[in-house]
């Protein structure tokens, strides 16, 4: 399958979407990443990454409710799907198996 590789930032965003469990949209993702890693990314960058993840089939989007604070505009909420879950687990397994090979003495 073409283009299902997970980039570093994509992995981070995908993870965050998973954590937020149905309440993920541009701003919550941005805030969550900032609070966990200290990385500040612009909301447009987050949008672009979310769009990419959706195209790769790792997340699904649905229209959320509008609210007054958004000038009456609806949210686009994102939810991780099975493929996304699997991709994350695969990355994690890869990392852990590699960590096991790391000699204890290396600094």
């Amino acid at each position: 399958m073409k283009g299902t590789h997970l980039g570093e930032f994509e992995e981070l965003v995908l993870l965050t979407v998973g954590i937020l469990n149905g309440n993920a949209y541009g701003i919550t993702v941005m805030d969550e990443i900032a609070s966990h890693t200290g990385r500040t990314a612009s909301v447009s960058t987050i949008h672009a990454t979310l769009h990419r993840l959706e195209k790769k089939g790792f997340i699904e989007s649905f229209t959320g409710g509008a609210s007054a604070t958004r000038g009456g505009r609806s949210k686009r909420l994102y939810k991780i799907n099975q493929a996304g879950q699997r991709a994350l687990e695969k990355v994690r397994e890869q990392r852990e198996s590699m960590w096991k090979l790391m000699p204890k003495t290396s600094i």
Partner: protein
Amino acid sequence: MPVQPPKWAMKFLEWTCSSTFLDELQGDLLELFDRDLERVGPEKARRRFARKALLSPRWHRLPKFSNYHPVIMYKSHFKVAIRHALRHRSATFIQGLGLMLGLTAVFFIALYVKYESGYDHMHENRDNLYRVLRQNPKDGTRGHATSSLHGATLKEEFPFINLARYGNDPVKMGEVKPLLVEEFYWADSSFFQLFTFDFIAGDPTSCLDEVNSLVVTASLSRQLFGTTNSLGKTIPVKVYDGNQEFLMEVKGVVKDLPERSHVQFAALGPMENAEILYKQLLNQWGFSWLRTYIEVPEDRLAEVEDGIPRMLNRVMGDNRPASFGIDLQAFNDVYLHSQDIAANTFRGNIRNLKIFAAIGLLILLISLLNYVNLATARAVTRIKEVGVRKTLGALPAGIMGQFIVESVLFTLAGGVAAVCLVVSGLPYINNLLSLDLSTGVVTFWDALLIFGSLVMLGIITGILPALAMAKLPTLGDTQATLNFKPGQGSWTRKAFIGIQYFVSVGLLVGAFAVYKQYQYLKNFDLGFDSSQLVHIPVDDRDMQQKLSLIKEKIKGLPGVLGVTMTGEDLPSDLNNTWDLNWNGSGRENPLPIDIVGVDQDYFDLIGIGFKDGHNFRAGYALDSARTVVFNEEARKYLKDQYQQGQEVLINGRNRKLIGVVENHHNITLHSKVVPIAYMIFPAGFRVSADNLLVKVNTDQVSSQLGQLEEVWKEFSGDPFSYNFVDEAFAQAYQAEQRFSTLVGIFTLIAIAISIVGLFGLVSFTVQRKLKEISIRRILGATELQLTQLLGKDFLWVFILALVFALPAAWYLIGKWLNNFAYSIDLNPLMLVAAVLICLTLSALVIVYHLQRTTKINPSTILTSE
């Protein structure tokens, strides 16, 4: 009302984000905006919102043009455009020819304007430099020649200014075979602080500090020493105008000077040497031999300008003549704004430049209108093609895109052709007009600008035909197709033709007037006989002592009809203006009078007669030293107080006024005849005779010139130089000639464009009315009637254009002629001639097309479908 984010930023989001993603983006940004409002206040929040909006565009959410694939469609547009152009070769040629001619003219004018307005840019301090001019406060006349005191006094009064003066003094350099260097100047050591020139060797700041130092240009250095590496070499320098010789050492070598600097020299020597040479003269305000420039810090300019009258009063006090003043001219204005300054030699002329720029814009305008007109008319041939495209699903935007792409392609092709024409034709034009334009002044950015403008022009000119085609009905809608007549009878087409006629007629009248004025100046009756007069300048002081001797020798030559000595050549600069008083006029109020040193043969030789009194008497040297002859203009000073034989005071010395001669133009016709006093002076004064005028027999001019040269060689080792007075006068109007030729060329181009345009339009009209014409012919219409039928539309437009063009031309040309001291009267015949020429050409075009159709049997046309 709560604080809102900037409206334009919201708009920007709508522009750059497709509707699918707009809610998400705007909503998120608004939420952040609300958060920012609480945290950092409205000001900062709005700014942050704007920044986020500006940085928001992402590829995936840019709005897409639906149903339109740019790359593929452009490829198709190119192909169709080229096929269509080739299929209708003659129409393409006509359309392209007009455009190319127009662009060529515009490119050439742009090059000319760019070249002329780019003078002196190499001088880094140019914005703070000023040229010091002599100015007569009474009549505002100005001159660029200044005395040593001008600069010295300014520097003393305003110590913060930088001063550089330089004065011409032809010298001979070298020992064995001395080289005459005309462009030698004595210059202040600060010369290279004010003016920027590139040095090959030597130090710009100190190269003129010591006495006997020398700065040469690279090419002079090669001539003198065979190398540009001449630093430290010495060479004897003999001042041509005197008997002094210096052994000078090369302290600096500069690269050959850029053409477009109005400050020019071949070699410079330090002012200290000039002080040795001309000690006594340097303390006189009247000894004007220098060009003076000052550098003034920007914030202190007003101080200097306001302080100059005070300075003059302090220095000169009551002795200051009423006609004495100082004016400052900005360095950047020197080249283009100096036509009013006495003895100005710069070609630059801001007025002519503006006229050319205007003509260039007019030509561009008509060639574009022409192009649009033809393109719209040609669209008729595309009805079927566009209909098919529409049937296959092309949207109006796509059709418009196609025609605009075609138009851009066309203008680009025209532009390339025009550039080729300009580049290849430039040497001929330079030759024809004695110009030295070069394409070297065009920078990369200019080229980019031209490219950009061509694309823009293509888009603009493409819009009208594109709109017409976009409105075209779909093929199959027969009724609508029949009713569709693009451009026919539309007011835009008529307005376009009207503007072309307006410009053509106006320019034609202008070209006539300019040419007439030039001819008028050239053939003006100067009031004296300038034919067969040879002028020989005698610059060597030594030779001036022996001038009477030389005169007698020449007089004896066969074929020489007469010789005279004079202090002024013809045409003259008249640079000795003295004061005139007489009994009836107050001593404190002298009138300016120009002095010409002559001998008693002068008036006879150049053929001017006496209105009153008599000539100087031959042989009475003492008597001649106390007498004076006026011209009529000078007699007008005296009015009814004039008496033959009365005493007048000239520069404080009594002279007896023995005669009055007819006015004649010893200066060029750019200025009126001025009051002149003719006097005889012995050798050795500034006003003494230093020219010979020889009247020769025209039959044997070359042998006589040979004999003159032989006599010259007996007295001098310098090369023999001469010129013919009538040629010198004609040459003085070179600028007018060049202007006349240029205006003529551009007028021809404008008319050619208009006629080519008319040609194309008539050919389309004829094609469309082919059946109507044929039926009329069968019913017996004569050719004249058919011409009327076709010409009717154009005639009304033509008349309307005349109503505007003629008064405008009349007014503008009258204004232009006002700039001349002597000018022609505007002749209504010029207007008639211009109108007739345009009318005839238009009629010819119509008749030509009719001839072509009438050759075909009407039945052939009517039976074909």
